[in-house]
């Protein structure tokens, strides 16, 4: 077996040396690795205890992040990686709202001091419906956040219980109303294909979400990972995974309801009212640059990808010593071409033939593999159909098989 990527990770200096200048928007992702409790399906890098390692706890975390920002900035200067103002900032987790609004605000201020934030930039955070109150939401708005994304997951009490979520539908409803009152753009995440979920339960959840007048909706299929509570239940036969055709059906239901209510898909798992797409999210698929801060956060600069150490102790030890807490890889031409294909093909704006030809060579547009029913070429881009969204990885592999090695 020979996979092209078995090289050991590189240190920040080696990465900096290899940086190839490229003009792309710059974004900032801030990871908040705290939760009040862990949900049954969660395999994210998050922790429920308030103190994660010596010197790393909820109180000290903002200052550690600021220290990391400083180290990154120095690295940029040393290696000629341009430091631009952020076009968007995204606080994800974990549960960012486990921290006080004043703490979140100070982190955001540190980002602004370090890189600057463009005027009118999108500044999002993720939140659990039961960790926000109207005063919190107003404080966040005042601190400069423009957008909030709630982990609603379902409006059905039975399903919330199966998903091991603590909030009630009523709490989610109050959170959404509060956010809108505070003047925040508002998004909801939903999870489909929960074990034993009935089709009409899923339909009700989507309808309810669509009826609230939210700006943005994300729908994710439940993935059950082995080393989670649900993974262990699956192994013991206590729950059953929904089949791929049941998942596909759920996806089609969501797409049909949401599009009738004025939402259009713009990425495989994301729908938005016109102009309300999450630009930060789009940046991941468009190949923008971004710095990820906090344990386990990923970053991308032109031909470099790197990732912060996941283990909190290793991460904080490195930050406290003034070092950069990450390692990464250099993308060669082949990797860049692969990424251009599988990232671009997830978007409604599609994989532009121009970009494809830049990646794999001239004439690619004229020798596409058969796309039968999976994608069509529109306005100079390859755009997936509904079926092509559901079989997106297959579509990406077919394109890669055609153009790469």
């Amino acid at each position: 077996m020979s996979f092209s990527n078995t090289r050991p990770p590189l240190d920040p200096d080696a990465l900096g040396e290899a940086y190839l200048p490229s003009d792309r928007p710059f974004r900032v992702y801030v990871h908040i690795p705290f939760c009040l409790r862990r949900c049954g399906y969660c395999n994210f890098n998050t922790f429920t205890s308030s103190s994660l390692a010596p010197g790393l706890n909820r109180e000290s975390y903002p200052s550690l992040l600021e220290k990391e920002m400083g180290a990154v900035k120095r690295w940029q200067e040393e290696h000629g990686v341009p430091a631009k103002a952020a076009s968007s900032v995204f606080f994800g987790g974990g549960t960012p709202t486990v921290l006080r609004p004043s703490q979140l605000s100070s982190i955001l201020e540190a980002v602004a001091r370090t890189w600057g934030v463009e005027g009118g930039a999108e500044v999002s955070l993720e939140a659990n419906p039961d960790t926000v109150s109207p005063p919190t939401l107003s404080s966040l708005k005042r601190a400069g956040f423009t957008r909030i994304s709630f982990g609603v997951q379902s409006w059905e009490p039975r399903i919330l219980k199966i998903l091991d979520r603590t909030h009630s539908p009523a709490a989610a409803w109050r959170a959404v109303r509060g956010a809108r009152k505070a003047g925040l753009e508002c998004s909801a995440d939903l999870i489909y294909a929960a074990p034993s979920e009935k089709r009409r339960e899923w339909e009700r959840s989507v309808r309810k979400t669509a009826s609230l007048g939210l700006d943005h909706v994300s729908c994710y299929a439940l993935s059950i990972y082995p080393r989670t509570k649900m993974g262990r239940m699956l192994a013991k036969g206590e729950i059953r995974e929904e089949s791929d055709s049941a998942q596909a059906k759920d996806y089609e239901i969501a797409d049909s309801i949401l599009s009738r209510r004025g939402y259009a898909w713009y990425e495989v798992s994301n729908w938005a009212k016109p102009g309300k797409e999450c630009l930060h999210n789009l940046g991941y698929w468009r190949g923008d640059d971004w710095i990820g801060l906090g344990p386990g956060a990923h970053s991308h600069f032109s031909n470099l990808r790197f990732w912060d150490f996941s283990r909190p102790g290793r991460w904080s030890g490195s930050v406290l010593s003034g070092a950069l807490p990450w390692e990464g890889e250099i993308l060669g031409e082949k990797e860049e071409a692969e990424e251009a294909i599988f990232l671009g093909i997830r978007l409604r704006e599609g994989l532009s033939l121009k970009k494809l030809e830049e990646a794999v060579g001239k004439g690619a547009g004229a020798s596409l593999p058969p796309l039968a029913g999976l994608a069509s070429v529109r306005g100079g881009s390859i755009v997936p159909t509904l079926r092509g969204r559901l079989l997106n990885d297959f579509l990406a592999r077919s394109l890669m098989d055609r153009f790469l090695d």
Partner: protein
Amino acid sequence: MADRILSITGALSDRQMRDQYLDSMDIERERGITIKSQAVTVNWEKGAKTYALSMIDTPGHVDFNYEVSRALAACEGCVLLVDATQGIEAQTLSNLYLALQNDLAIIPVLNKIDLPGAKTDEVRATLCDLLGVGPEEVMEVSAKTGLGVRELLDAIVEKVPAPSGDPEAPTRALIFDSQYDAYRGIITYIRVVDGRIEAKDRIIQMKSGSSLVPLELGIVDPFMRPVEQLTTGQVGYVITGIKDVRQAQVGDTITCERSLASEPLKGYKAPESMVYAGIFPLETDQFPLLRQSLDKLRLNDASISYTPETSSALGFGFRCGFLGLLHMQIVIERLEREFGLDLISTAPNVHYRVEMADGSEVTVTNPTQFPENKVKAVWEPVIEASIITPKEFVGDVMKLCQEHRGKMLGMEYLGPDRVCLRYKMPTGEIIFGFFDQLKSRTKGYATLDYAPAGEEKADLVRVDILIHGELSDALSAICHKDKAYEYGLKMTKKLKKLIPRQQFEIPIQAAIGQRIIARETISPLRKDVLAKCYGGDITRKRKLLEKQREGKKKMKMIGNVAIPQEAFISALSLEELDDKDIREKLKAHAKK
């Protein structure tokens, strides 16, 4: 037993001794069986004289009869070893008949007499009956404890005649075995029948015509020991340094320039293949290596035959002929172990003779050659089987033989509770799983031996397997008309389980000509997408896609269906699929 003789004669010291010394192949030691005959010379003193005894340890399984017959042709006498706890086995009889045909001195010996389960008196009586000898002529030994082995060696000196060749006649030596050694080239094992060979002699292989001076001449005792000459009656080896494997044909006669013979020795009858299967390398670039490996292995195992073949599903390979199923398994295992190949084999089949309506004839060794139309008659090979079983299992054995289209030829008692049943059966019925079924229905007691017995007309059809409408040639099988449905049903079900779902629906059909006899459907994969990349982990997604693409490259394409190698390997394995649905469908089919 061979181990014990090696240690008692001092050929091996205790330190050098290990179990199954002569079974030098890993496979033999792991399976506890002998596959290859091994020749070794030991010294034994009797009276004031020292005798050189050359012994060949032979395999017991029916598949390796050919090895036994070759070994017996190079000998003056044989020790007929019977396990006193098991009694006479089917292969005891067939090996006995071979020894009689070769006019050998036969020394009947009961082994394992020290074990509590030994039925020494009963087995001795049966042996006396069979051989027409008195009870005092049957020796009793325990190879484990060494009891009686010295007496046996003395008896060998007494009863086995000295080699009958003429030391003064022109040199003639029989090549009875050869093997390929990566460092030394071909090692040829010979028995000098007349005259002698000296180390400096130029030797000539009479059939191939090649002429060479040996690099080394020697005996095996059991270490390879160079000697200055091999004289009449001696068994030894010659190394000539040649690496071209076609130069060393087993059965050829070696003579030498100094004392040239005009007539070669009788040699051997080429063995007949009983079972055929396609063998293909998993990696297509290993095809040349497979060819070289087969050439080399054939030196050591003259009973393999092979011709190149192409399969749409499996690529380039060889259609190989074997002596039986065990032989086939051993050959494949040896190719993989000794030559570092990764192989896939088709289901084994026998060969058929097809008479066409226009009077022409087709020999079929591969199901794809089986004509679909204008067939007048099909002839299949048959064997005569001897099955020896304790009498309480006679009913079960008879039922099993009937299920496999057997016709009873006779039945006789060997002693009070052992029965020998003789059947005529299609070879194709006995080569797959029959032996295992026989063992399981008789609690392991029955033994089986068989010999080819011509051919008979039969009602046979070819069952094809179509995947998404495309014929998968490697899965076609020739079956008796009554078993075609069962094959089709089981194979389509197996494949449904083994072929991963793809983006479209895949019908899997079994067909006889244009007629579909069984069908399964693999439903299309509807969702194949990762919902998100957590925390922007694009690297992980890229690696996952790369891995999936690597995996697909290794798959075989039947039309546009990608099938993993493992699916073919499992589909072609002889493992039987058995579930409730299959049993019910077969029952319903039988009623029709």
